[in-house]
């Protein structure tokens, strides 16, 4: 693409959407701003339709530009002072009546590092509540926990994304980057791409080999392929001996999952399992990458553990040119899970229950370590008790739309409705904001400066490109204003991003995710800094595991994992499997992308994708509206036929609102370790759309 000279005068920033954080340049214009792709290693100068159209939201009529306060059941414009005043007095009142934990916070994986950090500090210091978690719990938590178990550290991709180009084989599990992060596809090999996905996605269509397991059976598949690796003589014994521990115990479990046995559970041919083992073993360089499809399960941690075991048996992690990585989803899915908006966490990927961590962070914050609350509830558990006897009575939501994105969304909306007081800070009037008592209009990516940590663990600076509309404030500003009104010294909650980042650096110093050597200046100078960056002179750590893993003995851990299958098996009453996912032209809950006409023209509404035989058996034709019913709710959407679909599975995209929310169906069964809900598989049945809309509240 030709880039004209005047475009170069715009601000270098990054796309507002996914974790690939494509480099873009934003230039003010008569209509607001224009965006252009720019050369950056992750996107190589490319950008998908979401990126190209991202500027539309800056000036969209859907944009909020004034605070709204609910009066007599109706959201009415208010000035900032009044809005912040209402919030402060209501929070103080609720805290006085019910205690500090009666106020909860819900953050997001799209927020900048500065916001995530300040949100965690705001909860623990200004509100004194333990009740904070964020939507990243619904994204990265299973991979994060499995990474920590195996490697002692969770950096989604412990290598730059451009390393993938040297691979002869890549096994991509539960990921559809051709739709979810299209420019990423340029890093995948022409041959040697193996895709595991219950759907024949556009990514799977590009693969040399596509394995199509029944949803929820990925762990069994990982065991089968690992079995084939060992049985067919592909085990990298010297690597296993020198760089890992725990193989023997793991093998005892894997030994019971020979490929033919796995075939019966997954539906994936034993021959294909062996072929994958052989392809990966024969490659000089190979990668195994996982994403939400295999992670968003009540057994997500074990499932990712199973894939990591496979990567270890092949000797991939910690070798230049090979490895295991997880593809982070949300824009700041990586940084968002490092700096304290998570229920059990303090900045620098520290644990809230670690006395040394509390001491260090409390020191940076200038508070007594004992004043820091203990760990709180995980995202779904927090949403599940809103307004209940022992749950929060008030909730502040930043950068998230749980009415659409949380599992069992009908119930979550009901819980939000049971709150005494709900505050939502957002760019548009999302479905969650529409329920709020106070809505705060906040700035967008191009209107503010801040850092993001992309899927490679590289810290990026998004530079402010244009002025926000009048009446809009940044999230940092909001936190500053609230904290001050709640009696905190103003300097403790700076609204200036670089000041917050300077504090974050100190708080993260010595932690696993150590940012202390990162400065805005170094980022402006174009340095490629992957954490940990423990000193200002430190070049960063693009490939942290080359010499040793992050466990004290330097070795990676094989973790024996057992397969149990989906939390909600199909039965006579609910005989089909429903799985959910994303479309190219929409993003997450759709709050942003549904406001963009060009994207809505491509993907205007939800649909139920199924095999023609499945449709025929239900007497359905393409385009006909159908109700998909689970034990938790139902969705009404038109039928779409795809002969590559599994006959036992229907698929729904999860970007849409109202009666088209796929998450009305999903199962909130949680992973025992990560507390990840089982988004990717639940039991449903199809019913004719006799009635209008859903019979679930909200």
């Amino acid at each position: 693409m030709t880039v004209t000279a005047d475009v170069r005068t715009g601000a270098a920033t990054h796309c507002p959407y996914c974790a690939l954080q494509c480099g873009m340049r934003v230039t003010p214009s008569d209509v607001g701003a224009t965006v252009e792709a720019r050369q950056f290693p992750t996107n190589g100068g490319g950008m998908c339709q979401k990126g190209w159209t991202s500027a539309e939201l800056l000036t969209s009529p859907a944009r909020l530009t004034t605070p709204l306060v609910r009066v007599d059941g109706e959201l009415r414009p208010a000035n900032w002072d009044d809005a912040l005043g209402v919030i402060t007095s209501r929070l103080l009142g609720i805290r006085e009546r019910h205690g500090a934990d009666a106020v909860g916070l819900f953050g997001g994986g799209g927020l900048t590092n500065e916001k995530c950090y300040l949100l965690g500090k705001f909860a623990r210091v200004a509100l004194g509540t333990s009740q904070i978690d964020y939507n990243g719990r619904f994204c990265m938590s299973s991979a994060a926990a499995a990474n920590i178990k195996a490697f002692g550290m969770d950096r989604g991709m412990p290598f730059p994304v451009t390393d993938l180009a040297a691979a002869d084989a890549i096994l991509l599990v539960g990921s559809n980057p051709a739709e979810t992060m299209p420019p990423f596809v340029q890093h995948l090999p022409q041959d040697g791409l193996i895709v595991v996905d219950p759907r024949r996605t556009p990514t799977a269509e590009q693969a040399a080999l596509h394995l199509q397991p029944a949803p929820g059976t990925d762990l069994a598949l990982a065991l089968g392929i690992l079995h084939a690796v060992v049985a067919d003589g592909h085990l990298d014994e010297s690597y296993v001996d020198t760089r890992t521990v725990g193989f023997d115990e793991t093998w005892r479990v894997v030994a019971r999952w020979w490929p033919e046995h796995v075939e019966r559970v997954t539906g994936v041919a034993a021959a294909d399992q062996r072929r994958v083992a052989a392809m990966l073993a024969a490659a000089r360089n190979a990668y195994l990458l996982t994403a939400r499809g295999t992670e968003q399960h009540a057994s997500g941690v074990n499932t990712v553990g199973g894939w990591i075991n496979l990567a270890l048996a092949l000797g991939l992690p910690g070798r230049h040119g090979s490895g295991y990585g997880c593809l982070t989803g949300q824009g700041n899915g990586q940084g968002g899970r490092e700096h304290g908006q998570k229920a059990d966490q303090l900045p620098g990927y520290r644990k809230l229950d670690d006395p040394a961590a509390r001491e260090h962070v409390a020191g940076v914050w200038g508070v007594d370590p004992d004043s820091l609350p203990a760990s709180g509830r995980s995202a779904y558990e927090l949403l599940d008790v809103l307004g209940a006897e022992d749950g929060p009575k008030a909730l502040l939501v930043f950068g998230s739309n749980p009415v659409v994105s949380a599992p069992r969304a009908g119930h979550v909306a009901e819980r939000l409705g049971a709150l005494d007081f709900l505050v939502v800070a957002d760019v548009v009037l999302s479905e969650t904001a529409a329920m709020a008592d106070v809505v705060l209009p906040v700035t967008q990516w191009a209107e503010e400066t801040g850092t993001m940590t992309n899927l490679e663990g590289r810290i990026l600076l998004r530079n402010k490109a244009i002025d926000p509309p009048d009446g809009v404030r940044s999230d940092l500003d909001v936190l500053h204003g609230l904290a001050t009104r709640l009696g905190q010294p103003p300097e403790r909650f700076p609204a200036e991003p670089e000041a917050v980042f300077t504090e974050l650096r100190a708080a993260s110093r010595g932690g696993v995710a150590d940012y202390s050597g990162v400065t805005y200046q170094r980022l402006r100078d174009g340095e490629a800094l992957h954490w940990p960056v423990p000193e200002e002179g430190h070049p960063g750590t693009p490939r942290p595991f080359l010499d040793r893993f992050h466990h004290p003995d330097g070795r990676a851990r094989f973790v024996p994992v057992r397969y149990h299958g989906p939390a909600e098996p199909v039965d006579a009453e609910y005989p089909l499997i429903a799985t959910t996912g994303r479309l190219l032209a929409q993003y997450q809950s759709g709050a942003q992308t549904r406001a963009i006409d060009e994207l809505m023209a491509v993907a205007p509404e939800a649909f139920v994708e199924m095999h023609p035989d499945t449709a025929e058996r239900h007497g359905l034709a393409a385009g006909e509206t159908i109700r998909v019913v689970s034990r938790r709710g139902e969705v009404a959407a038109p039928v779409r036929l795809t002969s590559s679909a599994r006959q036992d599975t229907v698929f729904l995209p999860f970007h849409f609102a109202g009666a088209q929310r796929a998450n009305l169906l999903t199962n909130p069964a949680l992973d025992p370790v990560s507390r990840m809900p089982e988004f990717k598989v639940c039991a449903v049945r199809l019913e004719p759309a006799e009635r209008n809309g859903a019979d679930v509240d909200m």
Partner: protein
Amino acid sequence: MSTCDQAGPRRVVIVGYGMAGARLAEDLRARDPRGERVSVTVLGGEPHLAYNRILLSGVVAGTMSRRSVHLHEESWAERNDVDLRTGTAVTTIDRAARTVTLGDGSQVGYDALVLATGSRAWIPPTEGLLTDDGELAPGVVAFRTLDDCERILAQARAGAPVAVLGGGVLGLEAARGLAGRGSNVTVVHPVGHLMERQLDPGAGGVLAKALTEHGIEFALGKLATRYLPGDGLKLDDGSHLPADLVVVSAGVRAETGLAEAAGLDVDQGIVVDDSLRTSDQRIYAIGDVAQHPGAPSGLVQPAWEQSGVLADLLTGADTSSRYRGTSVITRLKARGIDLSAVGDVHPEIGSDEDEVVCLTDARRGRYAKVVLRDDRVRGAILLGFPDAAATVAHHYDNGTPAPSDRLAFLLGRALPDEAAPAENPATMPGAVTVCKCNNVTKASLVDAWRSGARSTAGLAEATRATTGCGGCRSVVEGIATWLASTD
């Protein structure tokens, strides 16, 4: 020894430390990790740790080490609070006293006794296979235990003739493993086609041909009448088969001696009900030694399912748990051969009640037969159709209707709805999406060209095609070239 210890956990004693006994001990501990409900004692006749019999053909083929087939590591019993005694034969059961007596004369009391003694190789009455004292003659090895595998490996030399007695699953797996190691293998099978329990004659024939490609020879419909050590076998048609080694895989017999002596109901195996109970209410049997109408013998899947049910019952984790039988899919684990068979495969094309879909490609070692009734899979043989095997088995297991496109069903992969974008830019339909990242169709590229974007770069700027992953660049270039040629 106390027989009615009311205090403390119930004493479960498992006789046999093979795949069934080992699994039951694990299943009990999974349901009762702290040993509050049951104590677990395992008495194993062999001196070594339990091993995974499924992997033995891998040992013969040389892809599995002895160590890697063990089910447990040394510390397993201690870590799981299991009283494991290996090398301990049980000589008698005293049902009245509720004790078992061990080879050394000591006794172990039980509240629940589980017999998981498995089965042993059956040696056909061919003259000379056994010595006068009942041992296998020199040069004769059964194919049943881990020790058998080691004997086979020690005695089979590359280039030397080996006879395998038995053309069933295990015999063929042993034959394939030995052929892969360079032995000249001949399979002697008394029936006219291989694996007659699972295959129809057509499939048996194609299988024999496929195995012949791997260097294995066959003597079908023939019995071995006499064995001469160092020489070979004499067959019932008078022919002679040289063999330095004879591997016997002619079937198994349940190890029912202990149960018979104790007066339990025994037929082919120890008769059990859906609770896995024998004719004594306190004695259970699982695995190969048990005889349940829904459980085919000689396979691990029924043993594992029985173990799960029995663990539910013995720990009280689920007292409604019952074993109703196992639907078994036979898989031949032989390198280069992909065979699965399931259900009733005997109906022929033209059957009134059943729909039979059949495809024979003998030259390439492929044979497929699917028997359907009301769209449900009743039986299938799939040789050389690995993808179909996976999907057919899935439909068989779940009782789900088979795809209406029977050809796609046999191929195991759905045929795509639309062909890939035509390579020829001139004939490509306008509605084809060329750039998926930016939803750009061929028609919109043509429009952009006509509006003045007369280069690939110009088309990219006008439509954003190629500006995502870049995968469509060559197609867009092709369209640009074609448009230039039409101007």
